[in-house]
């Protein structure tokens, strides 16, 4: 360092000059780089390319919903008391006044009516959980059908599935915390499901619930799992999920200039940052509008949970519907013998069935490799039609889960269509076998048909102009290509060091448009 640099600057101009060409920001980056060495990697990170496709935003919805869940959840913990101690309700909700309720229920009603912004936060939290799981499931379907789980991304597929599993659990647990009539019934069903596990069931149930049902332990225990244990694991796994995404770089669909050895899209800074931050605001907006305008889980209408009380049309949140559905349509196959009982009518649908589904999902990358013997690295995505067997298998499983989801509404459907419950139940018992097979076969056929469709398939159909010749002959001629039909892709270029709207030779007129040598106005892409 030269002595001049150490000399205290005398004038403002000197001080500015001493900071170097990039001013205070440059100085700050320098100081940070001295300590952490961030400049080189940071520069590369600014240029990091994110491929553009609408389906790549599904995971972002899940991520941002998780952020919303954390923020609204913290707000709720400020006012919620996880205790089943009984109190007399004296709050603002008149119909409940003077009734014996648990603290958990009283504080949840209080959040809804007395806490400033409480109902909005509670409803946003609940809606956000539903959106979160929906986004995860659709994101997972995208990964599956485009083959994004293939080598080298099997580990991230596993992390993603674990996230789904834990989120399902945490959603159910959160739904159980208010101790209202419907959530209490949910806990009762959970207890009976644990009880159904052969050999260990009753012990597990007693250890989890701290004794026989209902006990006073379960709500505080579920609370700490819901607000600390599972969120911490989820946050860590999401971190790992994103780290692997950055490390392995995003997949992309085939297209002009896109290969297995590059990534084509928008740069991290500023384009992607702007769009994704905007998208975060949009997800927040939808959640806030739902939370403010669409009522969800009005626990004050259900009342305090009492073991001997029950409500009609008891339904869990949507993501538990598939399990509730199988429980409903399962025949009553209880096994009794040798002095023991195995409640297969519960154990099979509620433990074995989800076990099989999740094992199948976790194992899918390995299962597929068994058949394809494909050990290559893949960064270009498949079109679902090009892998008809995988697409058919995925569609069949999705159809199975949709059907069981539908079966969780047997009573509502019977009421709505004025048919007998018996008929609805038996229809679902048949559908749950027939629909997946049909969907699988039809999907497979459609994939094969689409493969033979040629390059123009999926684009807008061109109108046929039918003309009659003088001789009376009819001729059909395709009309002109309409604007937007032709797909001109630009050749991708590396992100230049200085994104400059003006290369000096042309006059910049408005925004980022400029006329070129021929006077044609062009836009910087």
């Amino acid at each position, binding site marked *: 360092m030269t002595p001049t640099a150490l000399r205290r600057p005398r004038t403002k101009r000197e001080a500015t000059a001493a900071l170097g060409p990039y001013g205070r920001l440059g100085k700050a980056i320098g100081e940070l780089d001295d300590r952490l060495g961030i400049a080189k990697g940071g520069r590369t990170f600014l240029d990091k390319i994110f491929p553009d496709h609408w389906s790549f935003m599904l995971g972002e919805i899940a991520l941002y919903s998780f952020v919303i869940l954390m923020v609204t959840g913290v707000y709720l913990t400020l006012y919620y008391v996880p205790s089943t101690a009984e109190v007399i309700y004296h709050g603002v909700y008149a119909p409940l006044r003077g009734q014996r309720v648990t603290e958990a229920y009283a504080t949840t009603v209080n959040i809804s009516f007395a806490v400033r912004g409480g109902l909005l936060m509670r409803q946003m939290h609940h809606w956000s959980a539903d959106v979160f799981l929906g986004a995860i499931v659709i994101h997972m379907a995208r990964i599956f059908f485009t083959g994004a789980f293939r080598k080298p991304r099997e580990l991230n597929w596993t992390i993603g599935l674990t996230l789904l599993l834990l989120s399902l659990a945490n959603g159910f647990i959160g739904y159980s915390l208010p101790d209202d009539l419907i959530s209490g019934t949910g806990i009762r069903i959970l207890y009976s499901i644990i009880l159904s596990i052969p050999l260990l069931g009753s012990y597990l149930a*007693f250890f989890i619930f701290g004794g026989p049902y209902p006990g006073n332990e379960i709500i505080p225990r579920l609370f700490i799992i819901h607000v600390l244990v599972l969120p911490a694991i989820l946050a860590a796994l999401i971190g790992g999920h994103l780290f692997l995404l950055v490390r392995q770089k995003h997949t992309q669909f085939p297209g002009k200039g896109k290969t297995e050895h590059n990534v084509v899209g*928008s740069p991290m800074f500023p*384009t992607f940052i702007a769009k994704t931050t905007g998208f975060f605001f949009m997800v927040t907006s939808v959640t806030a509008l739902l939370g403010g305008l669409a009522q969800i889980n009005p626990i004050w209408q259900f009342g305090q949970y009492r073991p*001997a009380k*029950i409500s009609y049309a*008891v339904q869990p949140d949507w993501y538990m519907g598939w399990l509730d559905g199988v429980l409903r349509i399962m025949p009553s196959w209880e096994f009794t013998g040798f002095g023991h009982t195995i409640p297969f009518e519960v154990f099979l649908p509620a433990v074995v069935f989800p076990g099989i589904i999740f094992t199948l999902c976790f194992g899918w990358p390995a299962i597929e490799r068994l058949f394809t013997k494909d050990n290559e690295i893949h960064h270009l995505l498949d079109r679902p039609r090009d892998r008809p067997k995988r697409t058919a298998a995925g569609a069949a499983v999705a159809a199975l889960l949709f059907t069981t989801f539908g079966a969780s509404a047997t009573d509502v459907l019977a009421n709505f269509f004025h048919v007998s419950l018996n008929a609805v139940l038996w229809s679902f018992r048949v559908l749950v076998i027939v629909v997946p097979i049909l969907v699988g076969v039809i999907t497979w056929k459609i994939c094969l048909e689409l493969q033979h469709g040629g390059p123009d398939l999926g684009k807008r159909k061109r109108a046929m102009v039918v003309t009659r010749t003088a001789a009376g002959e009819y001729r059909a001629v395709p009309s002109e290509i309409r604007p937007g039909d032709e797909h001109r892709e630009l050749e991708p270029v590396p992100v230049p*060091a200085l994104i400059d709207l003006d290369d000096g030779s042309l006059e910049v007129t408005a925004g980022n448009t400029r006329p070129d040598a021929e006077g044609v106005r062009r836009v*910087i*892409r």
Partner: protein
Amino acid sequence: MSDETHSARSPLPVASLDDPQLQIAARFPRRTENIIALNFLLGLLCVGAFGAAFWQNWAPWILGLTFGAGTFFLGFGLIAWGKYLMPQGPFVEERHVLASTEAERDSMAAAVLQRGTVVVRRRKLLGGLLAGGLGIFGIVAAFPLIRSLGPLPKTTLTKTNWRRGSLVVDANGRPVRRDELQPGGLLTVFPAGYETNEETQAVDQTVLIRAQTGDLVTEPGRGSWAPDGYVAYSKVCTHLGCPVGLYEQQLKLLVCPCHQSIFNILDGAVPKFGPAPRPLPQLPLYFDDSGYLRAQRGYDQPIGPGFWERS
């Protein structure tokens, strides 16, 4: 990255304004800028309105609407800015091979193997003791810790508080007289002394129905169980333990609202439909000398859903 690429001004992809794929908004940047500015302005106003609404503690729907609208406008503006007024590319980035060289792999494998065998395997005793210690740690974690989470089930699951001569009372502790219910009437009852406790309610809850006038025989051998048409079944569903709370008067059916198991009260609550595997256990009743309903004895089998120890 070398100095050259840092200072290079490589040409950006350009699209001519008559390119059909070019979004209209990108063709008129000035207008787009104004629209985005308007969005940001509206967003700021709405977020400000949200602050005011929160401060004044207005209705939740106003809070949701202002907050949702505010974040919508801000998000819309930001996305439009990124989509139309920022460099779109397509830009490309090389995808570097993650795998190391063969030599680097070998070097790592060799280090793990060699250090593992030489350093660890040479001290077999230490290794063994450490493994044993960790194993015991695991058992300790599994046994006293998990064990201490709750009592052992023992016979808890097979018992209720219904005894010989238990007085039948409703949730308020009122005993049941002969004329308490009209035919078709229903009441949830408990053994006297246990009607207010949630723990005991969960197992003792019993549904009392007056099916008819005159004694009812639901099954052979249950001749005296339902005096004057008063019949009582455990209210805990044998499927998943929900209270069997719906009663269809005309058909004399009990329905579980959780998974639609249906039990016929006239023939011993045998499941007619749905996933429930067993009839609801029936509680034998009698009227004592003062005309109050009592239990002849407790249930003759464990109530509720099945479990391994149930014989």
